[in-house]
């Protein structure tokens, strides 16, 4: 069992190659750790402190007897630590890395089959003349999605999570390095199709974008509130099918805004193109904001120098 994401051991693959499970950077990763966060010390097994090995924590029959009543040395240890702290640490490092380089990263989340990959293919087609873009694809198995993106002439990396149900910030940090994402670009991260787990795992993206297709139920935002709460933008996809369905878009949007009143909503059809220009404009605005932040950071560093 992987020690961070809980996936099957050795099942995470990036472009078909196994991801190292040491959870230590494999190569030279140059992002800075946020200064105000405590550095996590990794636990090294030693003769004194055997760790996570059944034989080394085996109290044996002797030790069990030593714990007879009255002999216990039980004590309380205050911990007070966030269970997701480790992921959040990697996510903040990713965020610093991306912002300092003017890389606008979007984490695309939805249930399977909402049209995320088609949306990406159409988005790339609309932006490719003017924008440098990269894609990280997360799926449990297959390289099909990355292959679809590469066919558009864009660098794409496939992360197979094996039994894992979501991407985590460490996987994405490895992906960013492997893709050699250049400055002033847009990075799309297509998460594993799952409306539950990816909500809890910050990847260091600028925004989570949740995609809901009109072939699903209007009440999905109520059924999966965490995801709609975590997102900044809702794309209501496959709107060209509305004449054939009983789906009420106003009701779905109403439910989503009930979960997250500041949620921005764009109705579109990735396949037919309606509404795509609004989505493209939203990306352009976000990208320019990131580039502006990068320049501000550079200027303040020059100022300090």
């Amino acid at each position, binding site marked *: 069992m992987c020690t961070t994401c809980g996936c099957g051991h050795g099942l995470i693959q990036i472009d078909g190659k196994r991801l190292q499970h040491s959870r230590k950077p494999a190569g030279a990763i140059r992002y800075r750790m946020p200064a105000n966060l405590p550095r996590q010390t990794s636990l090294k097994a030693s003769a004194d402190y055997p760790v*996570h090995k059944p034989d080394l924590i085996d109290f044996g029959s002797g030790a069990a007897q030593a714990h007879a009543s009255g002999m216990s040395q039980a004590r309380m240890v205050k911990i007070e630590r966030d269970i997701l702290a480790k992921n959040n640490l990697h996510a903040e490092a990713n965020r610093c890395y991306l912002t300092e380089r003017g890389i606008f990263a979007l984490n695309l989340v939805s249930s399977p089959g909402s049209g995320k990959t088609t949306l990406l293919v159409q988005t790339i087609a609309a932006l490719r003349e003017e924008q440098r873009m990269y894609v990280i694809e997360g799926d449990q198995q297959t390289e099909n999605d990355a292959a679809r993106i590469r066919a558009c002439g864009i660098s794409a990396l496939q992360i197979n999570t094996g039994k894992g149900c979501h991407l985590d910030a460490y996987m994405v940090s490895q992906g960013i390095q492997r893709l050699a994402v250049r400055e002033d670009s847009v990075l799309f991260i297509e998460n594993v199709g799952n409306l539950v787990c990816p909500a809890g795992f910050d990847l260091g993206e600028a925004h989570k974008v949740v995609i809901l297709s009109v072939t699903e139920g209007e009440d999905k935002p109520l059924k999966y509130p965490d995801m709609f709460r975590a997102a900044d933008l809702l794309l209501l996809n496959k709107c060209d099918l509305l004449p054939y369905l009983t789906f009420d878009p106003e009701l779905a949007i109403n439910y989503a805004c009930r979960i997250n009143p500041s949620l921005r909503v764009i109705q579109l059809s990735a396949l037919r193109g309606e509404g795509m220009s609004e989505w493209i404009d939203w990306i352009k605005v976000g990208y320019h904001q990131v580039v502006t932040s990068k320049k501000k950071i550079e200027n303040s560093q020059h100022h300090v120098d």
Partner: protein
Amino acid sequence: MHEMSLAENVLQIIEEAAYHQSFTRVKTVWLEIGQLTCVEPEALRFCFDVVMHGSVAQHARLEIIGIPGLGWCKTCMQEVPMATLYAVCSQCGNFELEVLCGDTLRVKELEVE
């Protein structure tokens, strides 16, 4: 099944504490789980036993402290209970509640020896 990932993270926190605070066995683990987090306590309980197997916390008792959700209604300007993320203000029916409490997910305390 992200409860499995969370249980793995709990184990990492416990192992780091075991290393720094010199204990070799964990008897009880207290986790704070907010009502508004995306965690199902029963699923976490199941994963906890599986993940702790063979570690310093094997056979440890898991105590879950539920933290009730609490929101702030901008219209009524007061705190109101919040059972779900889509809860409405119990006073005025407004949806725009800001979460004050209940989104925590923490290892609070350990009983060790």
